């Protein structure tokens, strides 16, 4: 049972005094940015003066900042619209009342009254929320954890990594463990531990980082519940919001993802509407965002500029070392590798079907599927794998394989198969090529962009026979296999340094 101190006149008064002092401190932080001198004033005088100033200016960015100063939270679009309208209806003398009235609901719900704030100006804030908080490392996280560390050193003082606080009402600095998760994924400096547990008292006293006339790079696809606050920042705060555009799959291939993903992405697009720029990770991904932007004039909006900044195709030295460390047994059956999270659009069913058919034809090989997935997505596939394995076919499916084991499999693979129906980029193809392993992959979209430079057999992923033929070729035709290996040897993969430089140059332009 929760025990609370009895409410007495004395401690209530102390509480109000502390809240009043904290409010005053926050208003002192926002006042210079709003061009108002509040030195020597009480909190109520400060607020009155600031409210009058924002009322007079009718500037949405000023209203956004005043809201943050009063509540220590980032306003939703509805909260800010409500405040702005109330200010327009108010007189200078009643502007303060309008501010208090329209912030009361948020302040009551979030208990953020004791928080401190800091304006972050003329700096690139990089939202790395998910990578900071979770030990999870697939597509988007791999990009972030490759790109952001490249900005360490000479650009340290020009960017700041941020995550959402526990109640998702504002940005805060990363903890040391979270920095380690983002910057040193392959070379951890700290033991892997859970994030520090924050008590309610801790949460009430958080330090909030406030983007003000800054640039905010949203490096991930944000969670549903922060999309509205981000939209508010992009639309009203005066901070330019740039996004890395991974793909529009949850919407344009909604049949292949859970409904919640599509809903989340639809709300993400609201941020896109008001962003400054989107950096597509491939030409195909950028085209999908351009398609969305082309629809915006019907809403009276122009939308962001969409730029192609194609992802890097190199693998880390750690991956290369792990792949090289394994010994290939010349007498062992050839290994076929299929890497990718397990979901319908990745088309693993077609790959498994092709493998079964080739096995029945008498070809001897070992096929290994690697990638996690929901129980719903993997249940039938895993049953099929178990049945084929019991019948004598060498087939495996690994749902939780460590990075070093995965790179080791690339080291022994004769070729990989990645016949996805829709991708934003196709990291498994790029990684396979970077490690010198030929690939059977799709002949359109972003996969075609990667594959057309060589080292791949391209097929129509909707044509099972084409997949079978390509896999048979790479299993049996040593000359063709050698030709593809030679093509790969000629390639010079794009480095993460180069990718990070391109993004940095664009973000700071």
């Amino acid at each position, binding site marked *: 049972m929760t025990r609370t101190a009895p409410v007495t006149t004395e401690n209530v008064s102390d509480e*109000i005094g502390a809240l009043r002092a904290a409010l005053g401190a926050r208003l002192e932080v926002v006042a210079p940015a709003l061009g108002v001198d509040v030195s020597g004033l009480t909190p109520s005088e400060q607020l009155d003066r600031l409210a009058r100033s924002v009322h007079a200016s009718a500037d949405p960015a000023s209203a956004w900042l005043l809201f943050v100063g009063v509540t220590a939270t980032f306003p939703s679009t509805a909260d800010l619209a409500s405040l702005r309208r109330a200010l327009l209806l108010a007189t200078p003398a009643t502007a303060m009342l309008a501010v208090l009235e329209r912030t009361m609901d948020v302040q009551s719900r979030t208990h953020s009254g004791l928080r401190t704030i800091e304006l972050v100006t003329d700096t690139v804030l990089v939202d790395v929320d998910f990578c900071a908080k979770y030990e999870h490392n697939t597509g988007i996280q791999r990009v972030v954890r490759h790109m952001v560390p490249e900005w360490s050193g000479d650009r340290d003082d020009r960017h700041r990594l941020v995550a959402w606080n526990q109640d998702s009402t504002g940005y805060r600095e990363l903890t040391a463990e979270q920095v380690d998760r983002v910057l040193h994924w392959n070379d951890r400096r700290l033991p892997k531990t*859970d994030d520090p547990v924050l008590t309610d008292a801790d949460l009430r006293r958080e330090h909030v980082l406030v983007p003000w006339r800054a640039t905010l790079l949203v490096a991930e696809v944000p969670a*549903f519940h922060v999309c509205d606050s981000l939209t508010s920042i992009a639309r009203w705060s005066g901070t330019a919001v740039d996004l890395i555009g991974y793909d529009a799959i949850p919407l344009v291939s909604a049949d292949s993802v859970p409904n919640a993903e599509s809903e989340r992405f639809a709300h993400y697009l609201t941020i896109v509407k008001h962003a400054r720029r989107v950096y597509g990770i491939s030409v195909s991904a950028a085209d999908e965002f351009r398609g969305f932007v082309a629809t915006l004039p019907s809403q009276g909006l122009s939308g962001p500029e969409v730029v192609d900044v194609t992802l890097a195709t190199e693998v880390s030295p750690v991956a290369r070392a792990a792949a090289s460390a394994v010994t290939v047994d010349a007498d062992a059956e050839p290994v076929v590798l299929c890497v990718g999270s397990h979901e319908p659009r990745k088309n693993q069913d077609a790959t498994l079907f092709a493998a079964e058919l080739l096995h029945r034809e008498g070809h001897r090989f070992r096929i290994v599927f690697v990638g996690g997935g929901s129980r719903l997505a993997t249940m039938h596939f895993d049953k099929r794998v178990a049945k084929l394995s019991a019948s004598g076919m060498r087939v495996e499916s690994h749902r939780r394989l460590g990075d070093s084991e995965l790179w080791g499999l690339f080291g022994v693979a004769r070729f990989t198969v990645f016949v996805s129906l829709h991708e934003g980029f196709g990291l498994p193809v790029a990684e396979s090529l970077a490690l010198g392993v030929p690939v059977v992959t799709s002949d359109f979209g972003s996969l075609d962009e990667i594959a057309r430079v060589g080292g791949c057999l391209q097929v129509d992923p909707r044509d099972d026979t084409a997949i079978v033929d390509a896999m048979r070729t790479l299993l049996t035709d040593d000359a063709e296999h050698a030709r593809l290996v030679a093509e790969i040897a000629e390639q010079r993969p794009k480095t993460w340094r180069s990718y990070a430089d391109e993004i940095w140059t664009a973000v700071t332009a």
Partner: protein
Amino acid sequence: MNQDQTSAERDLEELREAVLDDWLTVTSNVTDALRDIQQTVSWRVTRPLRAAKTFSRKAEEVGVVPAGRLAAVEVARRLGRR
């Protein structure tokens, strides 16, 4: 006239102070009111239902495993507060 003005300004300032104090008190008291609600039997017996709903929503957003971790952190946070 000047005296009236000064007096009016003083009244106005007192009014502002009182309004801000009320605002701070009300926003702060909602915390106590919520705490009272959370002590009721109905709130307690429906807690598992709300937890399941929250977990389900979180799992849809970030996946089952991360949602499990978040749930563990939340439980630890609540226990730590006691």
